[in-house]
């Protein structure tokens, strides 16, 4: 009977360690936050998204405030519609003329969306579209511009 109790304790500790390990993988390794949950949706149309991918970060002043949830082709204007999910704290806090730009982390790093505030007193709400956007910088286009400038000089 006594040995069986020690065994029970061992198995219990083992299972507890497994569950704690899973929690560690969730919180520390995949960076989930327990308070994540409420988000609100914004859309933005870009002429060119470069290599932006779903799940890319959305930042404001460098602080991550959300993620890109979907990217699709808008067949009305033939540009890219980027759907973003932002922390619900920001709902009603972003002015209507907020601008969105696709930026690159480092020279060759991943691309992400950077938001910057405008001054309009009216605020964006769930499902609104950001009008003022700036496309991704495509390296080839830059080089092309540079070369054609050199030739015309």
């Amino acid at each position, binding site marked *: 009977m006594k040995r069986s109790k020690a065994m029970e304790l061992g198995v219990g500790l*083992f299972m507890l360690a497994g569950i704690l390990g899973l929690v560690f*993988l969730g919180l520390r390794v995949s960076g989930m936050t327990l308070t994540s949950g409420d988000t609100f949706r914004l859309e933005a149309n870009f002429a060119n998204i470069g290599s932006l991918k779903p*799940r890319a970060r959305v930042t404001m002043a460098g602080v991550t405030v959300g993620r890109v949830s979907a990217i699709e082709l808008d067949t009305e204007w033939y540009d890219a519609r980027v759907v973003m999910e932002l922390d619900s704290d920001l709902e009603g806090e972003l002015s209507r003329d907020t601008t969105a730009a696709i930026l690159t982390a480092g020279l060759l790093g991943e691309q992400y969306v950077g938001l910057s505030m405008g001054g309009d007193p009216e605020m964006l709400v769930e499902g609104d579209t950001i009008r003022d956007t700036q496309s991704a910088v495509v390296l080839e286009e830059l080089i092309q511009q540079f070369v054609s400038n050199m030739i015309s000089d």
Partner: protein
Amino acid sequence: MIDSIRRLGRFGCNALESFGRAGGFLFLSAFAVPSREGFGLWLRQMHFVGVLSLAIVLVSGLFIGMVLALQGYTILVDFGAEQALGQMVALSLLRELAPVVAALLFAGRAGSALTAEIGLMKATEQLSSMEMIGVDPLRRVVAPRLWAGFVALPLLTVGFSVVGIWGGYLVGVEWLGGFEGSYWGNMQSSVEFLDDVGNGMIKSMVFAVVVTWIAVFQGYDLIPTSEGISRATTRTVVYSSLAVLGLDFVLTAIMFGGLS
């Protein structure tokens, strides 16, 4: 000519028959109504296949994480991308190495022991004696071992990943001097809980079922002689390893390969 075709046919029939036996065996024992002392039996097996496998699995995990970080760092540093070390270690452990290596170790450490134990019970006619006194050996002997394996391997896989990631941290950050913030930060931004951790867990559950099933069935189905036991034990390790590696490719192709 006819003879060789007949031999092929016999091989096919035998293979199919043993698959059928193994399937029926799994179904009958895994879904057997648990007996009153079932929980105690399960606990005893959990202790044997889970708790006692912990040491070998954790130590292997530590070394695999460390060697991944060491190799990864020396290659990534050439490209000035040593910040991506955490991402590399975590993704390769969670998606592939932890489920596969833990399952292989489990097959060697616990699977072979299960086969030998049940095989010896059969050889010494303990199983038939149980039937004689009206105890169903599937319920009494096999079911607790199956369920213990099903539960223990995913838990061991989690332990393997955690220790491996910590081992990678130890080498990449503490010894080689990578930046701690980018180790965890890049890891957190690239690892997705459901896609990476979740799929790794699904893999290890599949492997748990396959490895335990093979081990227990080989023990139950062997020829009850000392040679039969040794052959069955070997077969357990060989079949489990092949099944794990083959299934891993199939599961990876389904989960991450973009095949649809």
